[in-house]
Structure formats: C-alpha cells, structure tokens
C-alpha cells in the first residue's frame, strides 16, 4: 500500500565513502542524468544502495503491517461480496510486500535480515497503519484516502532510477486503482444510506484525513535527505508537492460524497488553483513514528506472534525438502 517520506531517519548517508572515486561518482550521476536505469549488479555508490534498501524495505514492511487494520474487518464485512473484495485487497497488500522484498533483495540484503529489522523495531513502516479501524466506514476511508495517497506517491516511483524498484512499482500501481475505487464506493454507499451510515462515513473521514496527509512525510523544510534522493532520481517530487496534489484531487471527491473535510481553514485559492490548509500537527506524526500511536504495540505484537507461530511450518517445509533431496541423491 505505501511508503512514507521517512528518509530523514538515515544518518551519514549522503557523503561519499573513501574508496569511491570522484570519477566513479560522476560517471554514475551521468547515467542517472541521462535517465538510464541502474540494475542490480551495476556499480552504484554505497549511499545509493543503502538509501534504496532502507526505502524499499520500509515500503515492504508498510504493505505487510498494512494488512492488519483491514484484516480486522474480514470476518465482519457486511456482505459476502464485500468480504470477497476485502480478501482480494488484503491479499494484494501481501503481494505488494513480496514484490518489494524481492526488489530490495537484489541490492544484497537478505529477506531474513529485513524481517528481523522489522520485528526488532529497527526498521520503520508507514505511521498510518498505527491508527485503529473502528467501523466499517474506516475500510472505505482507507481505500479512498490511504490508498489514494499511496497512489499519488507511487506513480512517480514507477520512474525511479533503480530498475527493480521501478518495475515492482509499475506492478503495484496497476493493482492499486481497484483498492481506491472499492473504498470510494463503500463511502458512496454509506453516504447514500441512512443518516447514521452517513455519520459513520463522516466520522471515518474525520479520523483518517490528517493521518493521510502525514503519509507524505515531513514538510520539505524538515526533510533533509530529499535533495539527494531527487538528484539520484529515486524521488521525483517533494513531500509537500505530492501532499498538495493529493489535497487538490481529494477535496472535490469529498464534496461529491457530501462530506466535510475536517479543516476549517481549507479553501480554494482561485489564483493558484490549489487548496490552502491548516498546518499539520507534526508532533502527532513524530509521536506515532516514535512508537506512541494508538496501535503501534498491537501491530508489532501481532506481527511477531504470526512470525513465531509460523516457525514450525517453515522448519517442517525445509526438513521435508531436505529429506526428499537426500532420497533423490
């Protein structure tokens, strides 16, 4: 479902390392500037490799953890049709996580290492998944807003300079549109339903609006490593540019539903054609990132338990494969 502008968390990753010569770095930058794709075995600066490993693995972790808030509603979906749709969507999120782990592995990091980093809390995932899904309308709001924000961020990643990441994102983007449309349709049905159902939709929008805007990451003035990622064409637009684009397309969609965006300062600037909005509460953002969101502990607890509970399956499958290989030999 999503990656977040979390690239500020790395330390000392912009400087060139001693053994990388200026000529190598210049030749690499020239390839990037010529819009050439970098492939797995090509020479690349160590900082480029590490930035990508961090970003792609965070993105993968977000997909995996992102199954939980919606997975909560699988057994409570209001109809068989909605249940089938939600199952397919949650399965897609697992698939997206796997495409991304596969892309990250081409950079020389093992799947086990990435999983270990997630489980130990060393690696981050998108803060949006630390918010609870309290009603069925939340499933609609997630599809519409969270997947909508993800699409906004992921489309430019399809042109990312690193080939395997770019190809994984193309695959993800093809599947993501269904996610957003099914979410909007849920909202639409609720808004055309009873007063109570519409109130449920409004409540979901109220709770998911600001966290969705935070998905684009810190404001440009605070996002230290954005410039380097832009030079490397890992990133094509700044956090604030993407956030603005998202607001501009989403507000009319809310109006169509007859819902009110929970921001009293929201207004269209006729001159610029863009919506102006209130300042984002960055304290909440950093707080959730630091592990203090409403569901951080629950999400990690569930992931660790699933990993531990599955250990015997992984071992048994491996033992069976080894035994069969030994018999064949």
């Amino acid at each position, binding site marked *: 479902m999503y990656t977040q502008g979390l690239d500020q968390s790395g330390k000392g990753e912009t400087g060139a390392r001693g053994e990388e010569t200026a000529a190598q770095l210049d030749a690499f930058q020239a390839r990037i500037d010529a819009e050439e794709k970098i*492939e797995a*075995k*090509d*020479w690349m600066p160590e900082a480029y490799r590490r930035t990508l490993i961090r970003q792609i693995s965070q993105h993968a972790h977000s997909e995996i953890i992102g199954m939980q808030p919606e997975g909560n509603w699988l057994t409570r979906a209001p109809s068989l049709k909605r249940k089938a749709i939600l199952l*397919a969507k949650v*399965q*897609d999120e697992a*698939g997206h996580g*796997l*495409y991304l782990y*596969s*892309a990250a*592995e081409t950079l020389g990091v*093992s*799947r*086990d290492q990435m999983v270990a980093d997630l489980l130990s809390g060393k690696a981050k995932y998108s803060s949006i998944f630390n918010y609870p899904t309290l009603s069925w309308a939340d499933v609609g709001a997630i599809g519409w807003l969270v997947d909508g924000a993800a699409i906004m961020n992921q489309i430019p990643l399809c042109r990312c300079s690193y080939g395997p990441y770019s*190809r*994984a994102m193309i*695959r993800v983007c093809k*599947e993501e549109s269904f996610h957003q449309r099914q979410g909007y349709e849920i909202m639409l049905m609720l808004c055309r339903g009873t007063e109570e159902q519409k109130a449920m939709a409004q409540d979901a929008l109220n709770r998911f609006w600001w966290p969705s805007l935070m998905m684009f990451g810190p404001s440009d003035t605070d996002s230290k490593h954005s410039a380097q990622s832009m030079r490397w064409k890992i990133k094509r637009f700044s956090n604030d540019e993407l956030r603005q684009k998202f607001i501009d397309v989403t507000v009319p969609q809310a109006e169509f539903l007859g819902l009110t965006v929970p921001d009293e300062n929201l207004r269209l600037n006729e001159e610029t054609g863009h919506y102006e909005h209130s300042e984002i509460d960055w304290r909440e953002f950093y707080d959730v990132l630091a592990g203090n969101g409403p569901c951080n502990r629950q999400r990690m607890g569930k992931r660790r338990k699933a990993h531990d509970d599955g*250990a015997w399956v*992984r*071992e048994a*499958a*491996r*033992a*069976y*494969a080894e035994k*069969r*290989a030994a018999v064949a030999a």
Partner: protein
Amino acid sequence: MTDKEWPLYEVFIRSRSGLSHRHAGSVHAADDEMALTNARDTYTRRNEGVSIWVVRSDKIVASDPDEAAAFFEPAKDKVYRHPTFYDIPDEVENL
C-alpha cells in the same frame, strides 16, 4: 532446528501463448513445487500468465556488468552485419 532462510527462486512468466517468458521477480520457497505455487500466488493474481518457470537464483549464470564493454565489444565493429551497410541504388526494388 534453525530457522534457516528458504532458497530464492527467480520467476519467469509467459503472459499468453506466442510470447516468450519474461522475468517477473523472485520468491522464496522450500522446494521447486512450492516455488511454483508461490510464484502463481504472488505474480499471477489477475491472469497475468499461462505458464510459469521458476529457477533457483544461485543456478543462474550472468554476465558481469563491469565487463560489459569488453564482453560485447566483438559485436561492435561488425557494421557489415546490418543491412544499412550496403549501398544499393534506389532504382532497385524489393531488396
């Protein structure tokens, strides 16, 4: 028993008959059979394929990108392998 990582397989998919298999990504699996079903579940949830190949990643032999210039060099100076190398008067048709 240790929780050792399952081997990595590369996945190639034929999207429809008439086309060749194309690299899609990779999966981990304990054995070949599981690699096939994992590849199906991961890469063909929307009928993207009619045939799948999986092969252990460590069995693939690949050329070295750092040696690419030298490796592919022998093909570079043989312009006479291309039809445009030959000067044929415009009056001659069907050639």
